[in-house]
């Protein structure tokens, strides 16, 4: 659905993108993380047809972003990082304007507006002025505005910025729902816990380049591949842990320190729970046993800590 090849974008004094490549399949929800100035917004702006790259190619929904921007706009819903809103319009008028701007007509137009009002939960407030909405409601309105023309791809740049926890949870649920509906979503965000919760893949970007990619964040541990990463915090000798691991073929210690170790166990969550039982039977006091593996935040720190100023 999204194919980006070797994109380069230079600004007067800096590099926006430096040979960035990315493939996103239909129905994927991909997170884009990286420090400020890494190139996330530049990439999303290019895909939204707002700016042109200096080199490379970008195809969205089968259309070239640079040579064929109109069909790309018809297939993309774009939510910028700081999205402005027409404060002096009523909610319904706002949606009507964008429905007209996307050339929706007749029954399709009415249905799209009604659906947007219901989806956002603003159906009862349709005649209210936009300026009377809280930030969370405005963000909902933004999101449904982006969905008015039933785009195949959603490009979201920091959609949760400034939202309170409840609004963030609501946004997350909405995005999950859209993902389940089959929408392809590319989301740039600094809120790693949100991305961890909803994304099927995370792309790390720094200095305009791909640094790393991680998959299967949103899948439960039981559905994951052949091994499970476990983080164990314990009171007692390390030998007990290493001894218990010695009897499991394929198990290995990834990281260890006093009272802590991160290990990779073959099998699924069932095997890791057997291992936990084994450790307890050996008399080790376990204070924490986490099979979620290394979290996105830790991965982010490991990836970018060396780059931090």
């Amino acid at each position, binding site marked *: 659905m999204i194919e980006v090849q070797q994109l380069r974008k230079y600004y007067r004094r800096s590099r926006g993108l430096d040979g960035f490549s990315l493939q996103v399949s239909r129905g994927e929800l991909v997170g884009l993380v990286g420090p400020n100035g890494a190139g996330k917004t530049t990439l999303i702006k290019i895909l939204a*047809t707002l700016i042109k790259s200096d080199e490379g190619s970008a195809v969205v929904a089968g259309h070239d972003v640079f040579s064929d921007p109109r069909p790309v706009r018809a297939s993309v819903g*774009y939510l910028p990082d700081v999205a402005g809103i027409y404060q002096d319009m009523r909610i319904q008028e706002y949606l009507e304007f964008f429905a007209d701007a996307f050339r929706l007509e007749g029954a399709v137009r009415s249905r799209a507006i009604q659906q947007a009002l219901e989806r956002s939960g603003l159906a009862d407030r349709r005649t209210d002025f936009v300026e009377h909405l809280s930030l969370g409601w405005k963000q909902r309105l933004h999101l449904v505005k982006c969905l008015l023309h039933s785009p195949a791809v959603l490009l979201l740049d920091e959609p949760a910025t400034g939202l309170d926890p409840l609004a963030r949870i609501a946004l997350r649920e909405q995005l999950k729902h859209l993902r389940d509906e089959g929408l392809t979503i590319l989301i740039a965000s600094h809120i790693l816990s949100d991305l961890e919760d909803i994304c099927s893949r995370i792309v790390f970007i720094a200095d305009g380049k791909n640094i790393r990619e991680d998959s299967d964040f949103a899948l439960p541990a039981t559905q994951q591949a052949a091994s499970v990463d476990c983080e164990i915090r314990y009171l007692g000798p390390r030998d007990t842990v290493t001894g218990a691991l010695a009897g499991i073929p394929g198990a290995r210690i990834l990281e260890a320190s006093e009272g802590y170790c991160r290990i990779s166990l073959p099998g699924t969550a069932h095997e890791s729970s057997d291992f936990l039982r084994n450790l307890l039977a050996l008399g080790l006091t376990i204070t924490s046993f986490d099979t979620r593996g290394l979290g996105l935040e830790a991965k982010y720190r490991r990836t970018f800590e060396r780059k931090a100023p």
Partner: protein
Amino acid sequence: MTRFIRNPMILKELRQRLRERRAWLLPTLYLLTVSGTVCFAYYATTTMQPANRQHPLQGAEIGIALFLTAVVTQLVLLLLMAPIFSAGSLTIEKEQRTFAALLTSLLSAPQIWWGKFVAAFLYLLLLLFGALPLLAICFAFGGVEVRDLLQVVGSTILVLASISAVGLWCSSVFRRSVHSTAASYTIVLVLSIVTLVVFAVWSDHWQTATARFNQPYPTYIQAPLWLNPFYPFLSFLNGNGAEKLDSPLSSWLLYSAIGCLSAAFAIRNIQRAGEQL
């Protein structure tokens, strides 16, 4: 063509403009100023006559004086207002961060421009036509024909359309409304005052050098004046030097060209505006 007529931008812009307080405040102040000036002109024409006047004051003289006062006041006010409406049109979208949503919709750059232009221009037309009854008073005194009225209104419309287009071009160039409005006012001032000063200096120099005091000015002397928005009104100054000037056709053509060029450059800037966001 239908897309330009049924342009959602026009409805949106008009809706937003007419919800502002100035939507009703400006026409009120505008009509009060024009009528006040016309009343003053009537008082001045009828009471403040020179002592050496050889014939009694004619109705036609009052009519022409009132007409000229009204149309000049009207154009001055409209020229002052035109940048307010046009120069902020696109910059406000940039300032409110709503421009990205427009650029990533299926609205084309010409449609965005047209929507903004029509909304700004229609408001100026509302003011212009609102003052027509005041201009019509002049017919009661004589000296002014319907043809004169049509010529003045047509010329004012052309000048306002061009100035609105220039304002929109400024709005497409700058990021902030304050800069774009300042640039638009500078252009209006240059067109209205600097052209007049240049013409005055050149014509004086030419007359002194050639001693041709009653002959028409050559084209190169008149040329700066074609850019002056008040130039078409000078043809009403019969016997006051207007006979030495060409017809306003050159001025109209020049203003049409300015308007078209401004529109073309503004549309090109809108197409590239994503880089500014």
